[in-house]
C-alpha cells in the first residue's frame, strides 16, 4: 500500500492528466459531479454523493452513433465514433462501482454493445472508500462493503493522507506512472478507518431493510400486489429517479437531420415516461402505476432473475434524495417486504 499527503493531491492529478484524461468529482455551480480535471478546478473527494452518477463517463446522456449521407436513392453509412482516449475515473464510491458491474452485465453480455465497450475498455477506475456514510445510504443491504470497494485501484482518504492500493493490471500500470509521488505505508490507518466506518454503517436507518421477499419465484405475486396503486399514486412521471440512478440503462435511438446528413444518436430514456412503450396499435403500459411498478420490479426482481440474484439497486440513495414527491425504492422495499413506512 502507498500513501500521498492530501496537500500533494494536485500533483497526483496533474501527473495522471499528463498521459490520460481524468474524471473526478468537481464542484461547479454549487453541484459536485464528475468533470474533466484541470488546474484550478475545485476537486471535492469528500462529497459522498455526486448529483449525477459516474455512469455518464461510459454511458453518456447522449452519444453519436453514426451518420447517413443520402444522394438520390443511395445511402452511405459513416461510423462517427471518435477514438477513445484512455482515462481515469477517480473517486468512485463502493455503491457506484457496484453499479458499473450491474451495467457491465447488461452492455457487455452477448451481443456486445460496442459503443459501451470502447469507453469501458478505456477507463481505469480508482474507487474511494467511504468514511462518512449518510442517512440515505443503504449499500450494505445489497452486500456492498463501503469501506473496501473494488476497482483497478482502491483509495482511502483521512485527515492527512490518501492511501492507494492497486488491484488489477490496469491499476498497477497507473500506479507505475505516479509512484514517484508516493510513500509506502498506510495499512494501520486504513484498518482503523474501516472499523470506524463499519460502526456508522450498522447504525444507518435503512441498514435493516429486508429483501427476502424479492426473489424470482415471487415475481407474479409481487407484480400483482395491490400496494402498487398507493405506492405510485403521487408519481409525476418526471423521470428524475431514472436519470440520477447509477444502474438505470434505458435508452432511445433517434435521428437528427443536420446540414451534413442525418445523425443517429442515442440518449437516455426513462421507463417512467408514458410514450416509452407506445406503439402504432396501443401501449403495453398505459398507467403511471404500471410504469412505476416496472422500474422497481426490474431492479428488485427481473434483473436479479436474469443475473444470478444480483440486484440492480445499489443503495446509493440518490432517488431517495431527489424525488420531488418523496417516493423511492426504500418505501417499495418496506411496503412489499411486509413492513410499514414511517
Amino acid at each position, binding site marked *: 500500500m502507498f500513501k500521498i499527503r492530501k496537500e500533494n493531491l494536485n500533483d497526483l492529478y496533474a501527473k495522471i492528466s499528463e498521459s490520460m484524461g481524468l474524471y473526478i468529482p468537481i464542484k461547479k455551480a454549487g453541484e459536485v459531479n464528475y468533470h474533466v480535471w484541470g488546474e484550478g478546478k475545485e476537486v471535492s473527494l469528500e462529497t459522498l454523493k455526486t448529483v449525477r452518477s459516474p455512469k455518464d463517463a461510459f454511458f453518456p446522456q447522449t452519444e453519436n452513433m453514426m451518420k447517413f449521407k443520402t444522394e438520390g436513392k443511395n445511402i452511405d453509412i459513416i461510423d462517427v465514433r471518435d477514438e477513445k482516449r484512455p482515462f481515469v475515473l477517480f473517486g468512485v464510491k463502493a455503491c457506484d462501482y457496484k453499479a458499473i458491474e450491474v451495467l457491465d452485465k447488461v452492455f457487455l453480455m452477448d451481443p456486445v454493445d460496442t459503443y459501451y465497450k470502447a469507453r469501458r475498455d478505456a477507463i481505469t477506475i480508482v474507487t474511494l472508500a467511504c468514511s462518512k456514510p449518510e442517512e440515505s445510504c443503504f449499500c450494505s443491504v445489497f452486500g456492498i462493503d463501503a469501506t473496501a470497494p473494488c476497482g483497478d485501484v482502491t483509495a482511502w482518504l483521512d485527515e492527512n493522507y490518501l492511501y492507494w492500493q492497486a488491484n488489477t493490471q490496469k491499476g498497477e500500470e497507473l500506479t507505475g506512472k505516479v509512484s514517484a509521488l508516493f510513500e509506502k505505508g498506510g495499512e494501520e490507518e486504513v484498518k482503523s478507518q474501516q472499523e470506524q466506518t463499519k460502526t456508522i454503517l450498522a447504525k444507518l436507518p435503512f441498514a435493516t431493510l429486508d429483501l427476502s421477499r424479492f426473489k424470482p419465484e415471487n415475481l407474479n405475486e409481487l*407484480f*400483482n400486489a395491490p400496494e402498487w396503486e398507493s405506492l405510485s399514486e403521487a408519481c409525476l412521471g418526471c423521470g428524475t429517479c431514472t436519470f440520477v440512478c447509477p444502474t438505470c440503462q434505458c*435508452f432511445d435511438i433517434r435521428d437528427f437531420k443536420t446540414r451534413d446528413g442525418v445523425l443517429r444518436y442515442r440518449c437516455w430514456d426513462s421507463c417512467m415516461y408514458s410514450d416509452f412503450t407506445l406503439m402504432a*396499435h396501443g401501449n403495453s403500459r398505459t398507467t403511471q402505476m404500471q410504469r412505476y411498478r416496472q422500474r422497481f420490479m*426490474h431492479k428488485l426482481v427481473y434483473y436479479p432473475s436474469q443475473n444470478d440474484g444480483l440486484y440492480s439497486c445499489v443503495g446509493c440513495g440518490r432517488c431517495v434524495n431527489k424525488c420531488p414527491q418523496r417516493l423511492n425504492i426504500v418505501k417499495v422495499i418496506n411496503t412489499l417486504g411486509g413492513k410499514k413506512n414511517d
Partner: protein
Amino acid sequence: MIEENLIPKVGVITNVRKDTPDVKTFRVVGTDGKKLFKHMPGQCAMVSVPGVGECMFSITSSPTNEEYMEFSIKKCGCVTEVIHSMEEGSQVTVRGPYGRNFPVEEDFKGKDLLFIAGGIGLAPLRSVINYVRHYRNNYGKVVVVYGARSADDLVDFEEIKTEWKNEPNFEVYLTIDRPQEGWNDHVGFVPSYVKELGLDPNMTAVLCGPPIMIKFTLAGLLELGFDKSRVYTTLELRMKCGIGKCGRCNVGDKFVCKDGPVFRMDQLDELPDEY
C-alpha cells in the same frame, strides 16, 4: 473482432408487391446484389429510413431462399408510410437478425404442424411454412388456417393459391370476416373456424395475429384438448436496440427482442400480464 450490432447495412429494394390495400411486400438485397445475412424462421430485422426512423419487421421470406430477403409491411405510421412510397432501386438500412427463431430443427421435427394466422400475422409464419415445405420430409402433416377481414386483405394470396394448396399432405383453410362476391371458401372469424374444423389436438400449433385473435383462438385450442406446451406464438412490443440493452421491450425477466419474439404459451403464463 466483435460484431457491430447497432450499425446497419445498406439494403436495396429490388421488388415491391402490393398484397392488400395497406400491406406491401418488399424484396431486399445488399448493394452487392447478394442476400444481406442469414436468419432462421421467426427472426426479425430492424429496417430504417435514415432521418425518419427504424422499425422491427419479421423476415417473412424463408431462410432457404438464398438470393434475397422479404418483408411484408403494413402501413400504419411515419416509417411504414415512407417505406410504402418506395420503389425498385430505393435504399433502406437493415440490421439483424434478431431474436430466437421457431424451433424448426428441434421441437417441430417429425411433428404434425398447425399454423393459424390473422391478417399481417402471416408474415412471421410464412417464413416457417416455406421452410417446412423446403424440408418437407422432416415434418408430418401441415394444416394452415388463415383469416383476414376480406379477400383483399389476405397477404400472399397468390403463393397460397398456386403453391400451398397444391402441396401434398398440406391442408389450407381460408376464411374472411364477411361474405364477399366470388369468395368460395369459409366465412367467419378465425377462432370459431378453428373450433369447427375439429383439429387434432396432438399437432404442434403456431399462432400469429392480433392479440384479440390469439386470445380467443388459444381458448378454442385448449377446449379441443391442445396442450399449452405445444402452442407457440410471437409477441410484439416497442423495440429500439434489438439486442436486449435499451430496456424497451422488457416484460418480466425477458427481453422480447432477445429472448423472444417466439414464445411457448406455457412460457407466457409465467410472465407478468403486461404485453
